[in-house]
């Protein structure tokens, strides 16, 4: 199959899948059975899916999560979101150019259908870490639970998280890879008889008569729960700048979906906006998929993500520009280059500091927002409701799982069951949700009389303890009640490498000073998760230190790979004796430098698309605000912002920002009224008796 498939990956194992044939613009193409249309198109190098009916602008992937509608295509004559529609053998996919015509299918249907109703004790929206964890708690007490998820597989975004998780090793499986935690949780869930899992079943609406509408496998059904838990996760925040709507500019989560879930090499050269954990991790995931990362920009003077994530990216040779933003994205119908610029304290670009990069993909990783509309509606309608995970408070997935567990117990208590919620759980979820804390100076290694010893480059307070839990000699420890504290080395090292292979931040290396009796050379043993062939035994490579600075040259003499290392390799680098303790990584690319563009087009709000569905520009919105508009509903009425298929999920947070930018006191602004449906539902879903794929 095409070169855009990932056939080799350091962490993921591409499985042999059944090939099928489908058509795009009448051209036969190959896809894998069970994958989404958008994935199949990307794998075939097709990134422009159609044109917007309003202005002919090219459309492609944006959220890959069923939330927006930029990926619409015609599949066998029907307009569908390609990111959540499975490609079928022989399917005829056409770009959606203009409005879709209603197919002239005049076959009558039995129009006396009443939707099936399901009663349940607890209904959970979302089978991600929070939803599953809650369902496990409930299922263990034999509570009747329905968990509905819009995706075809359970686990939510855990399946995209190929890296080792932070947190507490005992309480939330820290040190395991997120995707493996997903499998573990889903396996737990399957054992529970009282829990019913509905996949491919998005929640469409919460109604005032306390029923919840679900499109269960393409058929509209109603759920009447005694209690409703919203564990729907988060959606990615957007950013409005010239060119933000070009195909090739999309969300980091969307990229992770294409790369880590679908094993598609979605880009060749990419750039990332946002130095939070998502932005830093996505850059790492890209490199693991063999995709080149030219750089990351972060608007604040410091990256908000964990320092360990930042450092490991820099060590590989990816530059991170703080106090920088993306000025514009450019290209002829598809992204070809980005222009970044330094910004001042007021976030205004500083002329003369621009840099231009030729890339095919720009990932937006500027934070997440809770998917909590359903929770708010349910509360308004008097349904007993709860929220857990990101739908409640945005944090790491380990916190989501833990909060799901707690909310599960809370529901049990509210149902009158006597189950304890240990006091330390609340404490733990607070810690897991906490922002990274203080950064301490890097301490020199505690060598003592050791020939072999660890160097710990973990200098920021973050909730994490797997190194301390896995040290063979129990010499690594966290000398505090809180797992936020930094680990320290007690002086005894067996050189086992457990700490190196489990540290989620890849922040621990071993130094073997006994390697060369002449003390001319020593060994640096570093963790490694890059693709096969990125480094080879015998090669002399540039070594990098704590924060990516060049240390010198080292020869790779061995790459150790054992089952217990859980797909992380240990690379043995022979270095000059005094450099070994400084070496933390190997450069896999020379950092791109900021080359000034020939010219920079002046910023123009009239070319900034804010509402993607209805193609509304920042200028149009600003003009209305300056005319005195203080009502989202009035903006909607005249400009149609938020009236499109996504229901304002992308543009509303941006428009709040524009109100702020115009100097409006946000308290004066009448907010947008949220209305069902959450996603577009075909009329046939209310009439058809049969679920998709069933007879």
């Amino acid at each position, binding site marked *: 199959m095409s070169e855009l498939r990932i056939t080799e990956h350091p962490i993921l194992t591409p499985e042999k899948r059944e090939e099928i044939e489908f058509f795009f613009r009448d051209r036969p193409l190959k896809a894998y059975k069970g994958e989404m249309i958008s994935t199949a198109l990307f794998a075939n190098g097709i990134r422009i899916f159609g044109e917007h009916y309003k202005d002919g602008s090219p459309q492609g992937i944006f959220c890959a999560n069923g939330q927006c509608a930029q990926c619409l295509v015609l599949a066998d004559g029907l307009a569908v979101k390609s990111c959540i529609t499975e490609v079928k053998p022989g399917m005829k996919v056409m770009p959606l150019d203009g*409005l879709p*015509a209603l197919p002239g299918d005049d076959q009558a*249907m039995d129009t006396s259908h009443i939707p099936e109703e399901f009663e349940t004790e607890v209904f959970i929206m979302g089978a991600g870490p929070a939803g599953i964890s809650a369902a496990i708690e409930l299922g263990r007490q034999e509570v009747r639970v329905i968990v509905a998820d819009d995706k075809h597989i359970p686990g939510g975004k855990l399946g995209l998280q190929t890296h080792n998780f932070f947190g507490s090793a005992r309480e939330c499986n820290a040190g395991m890879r997120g995707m493996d935690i997903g499998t573990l949780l889903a396996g737990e869930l399957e054992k529970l008889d009282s829990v019913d899992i509905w996949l491919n079943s998005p929640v469409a*609406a919460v109604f005032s*008569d306390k029923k919840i509408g679900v499109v269960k496998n393409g058929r509209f059904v109603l759920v009447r729960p005694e209690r409703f838990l919203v564990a729907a996760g988060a959606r990615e925040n957007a950013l409005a700048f010239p060119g933000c709507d070009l195909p090739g500019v999309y969300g980091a989560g969307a990229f992770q979906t294409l790369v880590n879930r679908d094993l598609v090499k979605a880009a060749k050269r990419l750039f990332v906006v946002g130095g939070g954990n998502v932005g830093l991790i996505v850059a790492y995931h890209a490199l693991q998929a063999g995709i080149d990362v030219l750089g990351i920009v972060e608007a604040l003077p410091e990256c908000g993500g964990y320092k360990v994530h930042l450092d490991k990216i820099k060590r590989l040779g990816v530059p991170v520009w703080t106090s920088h933003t993306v000025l514009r994205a450019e290209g002829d119908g598809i992204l070809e280059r980005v222009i970044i610029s330094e910004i001042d304290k007021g976030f205004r670009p500083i002329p003369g500091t621009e840099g231009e990069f030729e890339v095919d993909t720009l990932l937006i990783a500027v934070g997440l927002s809770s998917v909590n509309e359903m929770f708010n509606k349910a509360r308004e309608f008097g349904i007993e409701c709860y929220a857990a995970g990101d739908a409640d408070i945005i944090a790491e997935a380990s916190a989501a799982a833990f909060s799901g567990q707690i909310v599960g117990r809370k529901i049990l208590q509210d149902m009158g069951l006597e189950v304890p919620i240990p006091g330390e759980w609340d404490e733990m979820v607070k810690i897991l949700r906490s922002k990274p804390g203080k950064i301490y100076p890097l301490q020199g290694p505690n060598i003592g009389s050791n020939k072999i010893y660890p160097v710990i480059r973990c200098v920021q307070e973050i909730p994490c303890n797997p190194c301390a839990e896995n040290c063979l000699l129990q010499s690594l420890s966290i000398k505090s009640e809180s797992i936020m504290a930094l680990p320290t080395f007690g002086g005894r090292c067996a050189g086992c490498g457990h700490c190196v292979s489990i540290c989620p931040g890849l922040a621990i290396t071993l130094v073997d000073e006994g390697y060369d009796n002449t003390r001319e050379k020593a060994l640096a043993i570093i963790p490694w998760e890059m693709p096969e062939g990125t480094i080879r035994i015998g090669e002399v490579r540039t070594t990098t230190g704590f924060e990516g600075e060049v240390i010198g040259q080292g020869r790779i003499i061995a790459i150790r790979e054992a089952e217990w290392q859980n797909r992380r390799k240990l690379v043995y680098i022979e270095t000059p004796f005094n450099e070994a303790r400084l070496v933390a990584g190997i450069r896999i690319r020379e950092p791109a430098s900021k080359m000034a563009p020939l010219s920079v087009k002046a910023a123009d709000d009239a070319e900034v698309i804010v509402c993607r569905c209805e193609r509304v520009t920042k200028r149009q919105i600003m003009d209305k605000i300056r005319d005195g508009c203080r*009502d989202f*509903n009035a903006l909607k009425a005249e400009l149609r912002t938020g009236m499109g298929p996504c229901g304002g999920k992308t543009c509303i947070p941006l428009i709040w920002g524009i109100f702020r930018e115009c100097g409006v006191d946000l308290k004066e602004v009448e907010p947008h009224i949220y209305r069902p449906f959450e996603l577009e539902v075909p009329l046939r879903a209310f009439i058809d008796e049969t679920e998709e794929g069933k007879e």
Partner: protein
Amino acid sequence: MKTHYDAIVIGAGSVGVPTTYFLAMRGYHVLCLDSYSSSGQGQNKAAIGGTRATHSDPAKIRICQKSLEIFSTWEEYHGQSIGWKKGGYCFPVYRAKEEKLLKSILPIQKKFDLNIDWVGPDKIKEIIPGINPNGLIGGTFSQDDGQVCPLLAIEAMDKAAREAGAEFKFKNEVTDLIINNNTIEGVKTRNGTYTADVIVNAAGAHAREIGYMAGLDIPVFPESHEAGISAPVRPFLGPLVVDLRPGREGKTANFYFGQNHENAVIFCYTPKVPFAGLDRGATSEFMPIIANRLVELIPRLKNLMVRRLWRGLYPMTPDGVAIVGKAPGISGLYLAVGMCGQGLMMGPGVGRELAALIDKGKPEMDKKVFDSLSPERDFYAGKVEALK
């Protein structure tokens, strides 16, 4: 700050905004008050946009003819689109009962100059592509009716009213009316007191509450109706379609839908048992019922994607006819209420006639016909609008 006006209109909705506009055009210094944040945030935006003069009541026919004239020429005169689409109204018929009803009102409709006729099944199939042909008898088609975008229409009239000197104050709920010697003098609001010689109650679903402030019991009772809209599809449907049959599910009277200027299909039904009150939360019952009805009538609609649902309030009167005119017993107080869910299509006509009544003491249209809307009529005389 000026607090005295020539006229104050209570309610910046489908009726209040055009009334404000037409009064301002007559040189009145008008203040329009509303408790919401902008014009049209009550029931206007819940309207599906159908505008027809096809009624059975002569006053409604005349009023809506005025409205249609204003809507259909708005863009030409003001340069601003209000989403006008002259697609007509079509009432397809499958049963003798509806055939009899529609044919019985044709004479009066024709007498009042409506461009309407009974047409055979082949013509209906042409007008409504894909309509279920089984048992189709024919129907009426009135090609001069149409649709507007309620949101754009009210925004345009709000703007035109301001240009004519009117003022709007929002988030300004009226809490009392000031009346002395049976003469209206002003209104009290949460934000202050405003005086005026003329006050118009155009408070839609809240008309009765405002009436109480003047000691009047205006028989306007809000009922909640649900509606929905689809994703846009390539234009295929010209008219607004009304199916007068009750639903087989036993819960609906008629239902109606059309493809609007944005090419979305917008739809609504009339519940058999009305939902009285102000509740506007969407129910789980609406979509399954309307989906079955739509697909039964036009099977190809099965692939239509439903985008959004909402509920709006129909301010109903006992006889299904609006209440427009001078309030009984209180000099200077006028009523423009009880539009029975047709405020959008009635609004401009009502506004224009009421402005004439206020300014000149008589409406532009035939006074006798206009007086059938009188607040002083017997609401329980048994006369009921056939096409409400």
